[in-house]
């Protein structure tokens, strides 16, 4: 009757396959941090409000503190550790976060950068309003957001001029 009560899962994290044995009640954030040593995703509020635990699952931002690890079996997960270039160079968004001093304590930063990446994928040239709208699920208690917004604007500007159809997969409308 039960098609799956196995706890063996495979997660592709930052391009690398990991076979893991997990309990059904294990949360993705804890598996990433404790089993795989990827501490970029932060445990913040634990209740899906602050966005510090954001990771990308099959390219979509998801809150890893309210995601069961078993439920993402077979999926591709990207954490902040996985966005650097092939030679370890920073992602343009990371660089602009540094340039704009968009980081103080740094706790929100991994989630903020992953959400920014998601925004620029959907909408390569967002307005300031669109940026603020897209990062509204990520709480920063240090910077006042202005540096973060500027950093995302600058990273967007580095992507070149708007193209007639710059959207990656037609999901631009989400960032309105």
């Amino acid at each position, binding site marked *: *009757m*039960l*098609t*799956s*009560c196995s*706890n063996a899962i495979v997660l592709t994290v930052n391009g690398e396959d990991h076979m893991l044995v997990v*309990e*059904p*009640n*294990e*949360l993705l954030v*804890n598996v990433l941090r404790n089993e795989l040593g990827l501490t970029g995703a932060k*445990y913040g*509020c*634990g*209740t*899906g*409000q602050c*966005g510090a635990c*954001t990771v990308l699952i099959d390219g*979509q*931002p*998801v*809150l890893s*503190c*309210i*995601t*069961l690890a*078993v*439920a993402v079996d077979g999926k591709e997960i990207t954490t902040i550790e996985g966005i650097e270039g092939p030679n370890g160079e920073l992602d343009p968004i990371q660089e602009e976060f540094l340039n704009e001093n968009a980081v103080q304590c740094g706790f929100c930063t991994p989630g903020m950068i992953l*959400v920014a990446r*998601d*925004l620029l994928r959907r909408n390569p040239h967002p307005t300031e309003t669109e940026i603020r*709208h*897209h990062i*509204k*699920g*990520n709480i920063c208690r240090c910077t006042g957001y202005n540096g973060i917004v500027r950093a995302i604007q600058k990273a967007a500007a580095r992507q070149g001029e708007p193209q007639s159809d710059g959207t990656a997969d*037609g*999901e631009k*409308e*989400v*960032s*309105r």
Partner: protein
Amino acid sequence: MSAPVINTRVLVNDFEYVVPSSLDEVLHLLDEHGRDAKPLAGGTDLVLQMKLGRRAPRVVVDISKLEELKRLEAVETIRIGAGRRYIDVLRFLRELDRYHGLTEAIEGIGKIQVLTVGTIGGNLSNGSPAADTAPPLLTYDARVRVRSAHAERVIPLHEFHTGPGATVMAPNEIMIEVEFDAFPDGRASAFQKIARVACDISKLTCAVAVQRDGETCTHCRVALGAVAPVPVRARAVEAALEGRRIDADVAGQCAALVDEDISPIDDIRCGELYRREAAGVLFNDAFQTAWERARC
């Protein structure tokens, strides 16, 4: 006795996790386990409830991959699969460009991390009085289609919620889809929400749908969330406006009638008096927006 310590770092209760490959299998599991089983769609509510110790299912049934729950259809009836992610529903609604109240309600849910996994089925089935999709769907006279291993039934949404966290669905039933009739020409809707910050749970919400014939309102639906034990229709103000010529400040004058159908409480988000005052204002805003939209 001190309050139990809630640790949201881990999920403490044990459960079995199942991924059925078909809806039939889900229904049989729910039939077999009854209240001990809980369907998991996006998990943004269920996992949180489990963390907070409010729910402790012994079997968690993952329904997120079931194609049977993902219909999106717009012919004479608009059908939205209960298991469709908000992000897909939003794109579908924006293409239709007609059901603005529901579109705005989903936009208001807000954060991208919830839009990518959350579903209307979850929003309605969890029975929250503050469920953002409920008021616009109430103004559309929406129905929910629920199914068990034994039968399928269609329930008018206004009969669906029975109290905070409670619905008429039996533990062995699951929501398949939400449906409502396509708007005739001249009908439009709007949604308004007040929340403390962008992504917070609503303090209160109001949706309006109107049918406009020149300057006369021939059909009016008003519904509010987070102002009663369930999302409610504001029937007194509906009755006052239906058939009425809408000039000057008719809606503003009728706004006080909203109070007749609500029974708000004080809670951590705001007080009863605030909700009573704000409900009329929110209604007026939503009405004006819907009325303007119905012009063309």
